[in-house]
């Protein structure tokens, strides 16, 4: 049994964990935050994963790397970087991410491009505040030769307090769905399956990957099914004391997630596309994992249709 006296895993523990991931033939590690690039030994962690052939994807605010780090990252063939930007203008982005951050992000992107970083994408969490700038944000990504990934705003963590103010309304979600269907080049991960058309199925997973394909490990080693299901009741274990393969097979929380049954969705024609949507959104908005995703586009259309007919 390994001890973990510090709140954050040490470098040796990180290496041991990567060894375990390699033994389990894990393909990719995504690093998020907070801000992973603030950790001084972070390049060593990336490099170690790469020696095992494991691809890494770093989600960064784009402001934490200097010339030296940009050079190091650019030399890593298996590294991918996703820079968060929440607006096409300083006004919109800075209102969400903080004053002055837009210009810092652009400088960060330019630094990576200067050193020839290949696998760069921009990530935007779509909210009411930036909804009308999605097109220009995509153009911004194109300008830098980067891909664009749109992420769903979910009522988890700090976003719980901002949910009412920031989440898309129904008409916006339908408009976004149509926009995504028209732009298959835009990445969405698997976060938008509640509004995704069948034509985008081949672009990624068509169901929630939590406890099936992915797990979330916090800096202190605690394990959760998903980065968006991090309430204490969803804690699976801790890699500082538990074996990951044992947790994966035996943890009741993970088996609970795998056995989610959303009966209300099973007769829906879209069920093979979305499998009921995002359990995290359902949990935080309905207090149940076994409820349909409240942002399901089918339920919106059913509610909107009678109104449309009477107009």
């Amino acid at each position, binding site marked *: 049994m390994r001890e973990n006296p510090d709140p954050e895993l040490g470098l040796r523990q990180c290496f041991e964990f990567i060894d375990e991931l390699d033994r389990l*033939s894990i*393909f990719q590690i995504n690093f998020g935050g907070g801000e992973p690039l603030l950790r001084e030994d972070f390049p060593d962690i990336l490099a170690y994963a790469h020696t095992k*052939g494991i691809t890494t994807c770093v989600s960064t605010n784009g402001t934490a790397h200097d010339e030296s780090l940009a050079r190091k990252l650019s030399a890593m063939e*298996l590294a991918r970087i996703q820079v968060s930007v929440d607006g096409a203008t300083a006004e919109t982005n800075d209102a969400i991410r903080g004053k002055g951050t837009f210009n810092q992000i652009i400088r960060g992107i330019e630094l990576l491009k200067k050193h020839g970083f290949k696998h760069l994408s921009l990530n935007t969490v779509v909210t009411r505040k930036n909804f009308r700038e999605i097109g220009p944000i995509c153009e911004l990504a194109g300008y830098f030769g980067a891909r664009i990934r749109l992420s769903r705003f979910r009522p988890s963590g700090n976003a719980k307090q901002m949910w009412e103010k920031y989440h898309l309304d129904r008409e916006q979600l339908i408009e976004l769905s149509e926009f995504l269907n028209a732009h298959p080049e835009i990445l969405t991960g698997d976060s938008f399956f509640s509004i995704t058309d069948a034509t985008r199925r081949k672009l990624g997973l068509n169901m929630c990957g939590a406890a099936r394909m992915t797990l979330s490990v916090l800096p202190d080693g605690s394990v959760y099914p998903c980065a968006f299901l991090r309430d204490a009741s969803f804690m699976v274990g801790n890699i500082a004391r538990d074996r990951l393969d044992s947790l994966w097979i035996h943890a009741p929380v993970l088996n609970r997630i795998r056995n989610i049954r959303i009966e209300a969705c099973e007769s829906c024609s879209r069920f093979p596309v979305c499998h009921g949507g995002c359990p995290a959104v359902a949990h935080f908005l309905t207090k149940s994992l076994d409820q349909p995703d409240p942002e399901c586009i089918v339920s919106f259309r059913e509610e909107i249709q009678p109104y449309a007919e009477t107009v």
Partner: protein
Amino acid sequence: MVFTNSQNSFGNRRPEQTEYIVSPHIRVRKEPFGLLFFNTQNTKLTFVQSGDILQVKRLPSGKRLLCVSEGDSRQNLKKTLANLVHRGMILES
């Protein structure tokens, strides 16, 4: 076609068989449905619904060999292997 477990009980290799090596940029693991391939160049997943017919062996050199259950020569499997070769995911040795 041959596979890594392609020797008969006398240790003789069957002449008509072919070996497959997993390409260096491809990672693969066994899953209940078959094999799951991951392309490190574009992060695309490929699901091969092969059940237990295909297996992966890691050699001490780090190379990975694709093994087929001995004697299995069903047509779909040949097509699948040919498709994986065509896509550069495995290499005939």
